[in-house]
């Protein structure tokens, strides 16, 4: 079984995440800086009015908004090496640790895709350029989501290992065993 970092590298290759994507993402940094605060505000407004998610942000919305702004700027910072993975991995682990169900980060990512698409559409008139830039943004958002999902999967295996005493390799064997 490859490590999460190896999976990250493999997924970037699989998605053809190239220097062109990196250039596209770096090129939209200004747009994200300009529209990011609105996207963040909209996102936290929805979280705060949803009972299931409000409890996770209560009393610390402003601090979380700063963290979120930093996360968004890292999306377009142009560096997607091991440090980028580690940063996303820590975020995933934090979501797991505080007990957010995995479908909430998925839903939130959908909101961010929409919000950031709107921001790009407001600033990029050429539809071909918009499509290309947004394509690169979607790739990195999906990679981020994949890392968060990996965090959840790892945590579930860790919990089972801890509780049952089963070796990780045994659990992996059972998971991958053919059903027939």
């Amino acid at each position, binding site marked *: 079984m490859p490590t999460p970092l190896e999976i990250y590298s493999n997924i970037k290759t699989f998605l053809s995440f190239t220097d062109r994507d990196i250039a596209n993402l770096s090129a939209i940094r200004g747009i994200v800086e300009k529209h990011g605060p609105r996207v963040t505000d909209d996102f936290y407004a929805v979280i705060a009015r949803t009972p299931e998610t409000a409890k996770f942000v209560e009393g610390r919305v402003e601090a979380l908004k700063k963290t979120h702004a930093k996360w968004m700027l890292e999306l377009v910072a142009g560096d997607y090496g091991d440090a980028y993975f580690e940063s996303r991995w820590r975020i995933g682990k934090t979501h797991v640790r505080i007990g957010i169900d995995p479908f909430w980060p998925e839903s939130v990512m959908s909101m961010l895709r929409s919000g950031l698409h709107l921001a790009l559409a407001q600033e990029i008139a050429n539809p071909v350029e918009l499509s290309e830039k947004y394509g690169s943004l979607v790739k990195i958002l999906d990679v981020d989501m994949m890392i968060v999902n990996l965090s959840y999967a790892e945590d579930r295996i860790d919990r089972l290992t801890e509780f049952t*005493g*089963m*070796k990780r390799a*045994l659990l992996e064997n059972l998971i991958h065993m053919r059903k027939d």
Partner: protein
Amino acid sequence: MSRVELLNRTLRSLQSGTPDIEACALISDEGLVIASVLPQHIQEARVAGMAATLLSLGTRAANELGRGKLEQVLIRGDAGYAVMSEVGQGVLLLVLTGKDAKLGLIFLDTGRAAAEIRKIL
């Protein structure tokens, strides 16, 4: 003679020397078969996964319930017994018997076979 051949010979000897033993296998704590004398209809990989799981759970349960170090996991069904014992070095011995098996003899013979297996490993 290779280690695998020696292990297979020990398992065959255990089975043939104890009529109540229908099948036996050596399984790693990762759920992989090391050596086995199992009937053809039994799916080795599934049996190995289950046995390793049960021994892991048994070990954890014995500890949590204050029963000390696990010696055996015993399953009794209306068609017989499955006895799992840790041999050492992350290896377990699984023995399947008929319903009328003399457990005392089974434990004695599996204990002897386990000692032999430890030497080979």
